[in-house]
């Protein structure tokens, strides 16, 4: 089961879980994803080669999508 999580003050919060076989769960995950983007969060997907990618649409084939806040120079 794939997960959409947000890094927050609790450590992390699971916002949605979905499987490709369950369109309803995928729809609610997409909705939660868009809500987070609208709130200014950024979405990051880790790839098998150790890299990560910023995504603007929920990749339904990903195992884990992490919503993070923007970073800035200190």
């Amino acid at each position: 089961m794939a997960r959409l999580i947000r890094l927050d003050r609790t450590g992390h919060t699971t916002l949605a879980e979905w499987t490709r076989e369950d369109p309803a769960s995928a729809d609610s995950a997409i909705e939660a994803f868009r809500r987070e983007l609208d709130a200014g969060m950024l979405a990051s997907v880790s790839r098998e080669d150790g890299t990560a990618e910023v995504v603007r649409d929920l990749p339904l084939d990903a195992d884990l999508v992490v919503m993070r806040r923007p970073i800035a120079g200190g």
Partner: protein
Amino acid sequence: MATAGGLSEAAPLWWRRRPTERTLRRDGHLWTAWTTAVATPFFVAGGFLLWLEPLTFPVALASFAHGWVIPELYARRGAGSVVPIGSKASASRKRAASNRAEREALGLLGDLVGHEQRDLLRRTGLALERGRLGAWLVGERGAVLVRHGGRRVDCWCVRVAEPGTLPSGDRVAHLLLALREDEAGFATVANHAFSGATWRVRRRMPKGSRPALDAARAAAREAS
């Protein structure tokens, strides 16, 4: 490191050039030249005083001390910009920190770094990440880049824009993800705090975090 799409935080910083190995090398030379230019007059002045009148040696000593302290302060600022998890300046040491949230965040960060680096993270509070520019050590409020060859480091100040009460592990996870998304973009967003010899920064780091720098240096040597 993935660069597809790039780091969105770097987009508004159009006046900053994306670092490359060449620009980092050039900036490193400028750092060294600047530090030498600032520190050398104090040594020259101290030597001149001693030559003029040996009895002025207390003043000459003070001048030498000034010349010695300036590069040390630069290195200290660089080392202090990283903030390992659990160190004095760590969010985990603040009164508002929640143990449960810290554990959750560290668990997720452990999953992100993978088995090989998990133990190093647990021992030193810093996450090691290999990149194109060198080996990175990521802390809560900054990162150290050990360049290929391992002899030179660059320290960067960078943090979550609005950290609020984020646990320490999440602060590192934010930076680690951003670094993995776009290494050069990450270094574009970050502020360059120090460039110099690895040993200068090492002795200014908390003792418990020094093995992370040693591991990063080894990784940087392997890659060169």
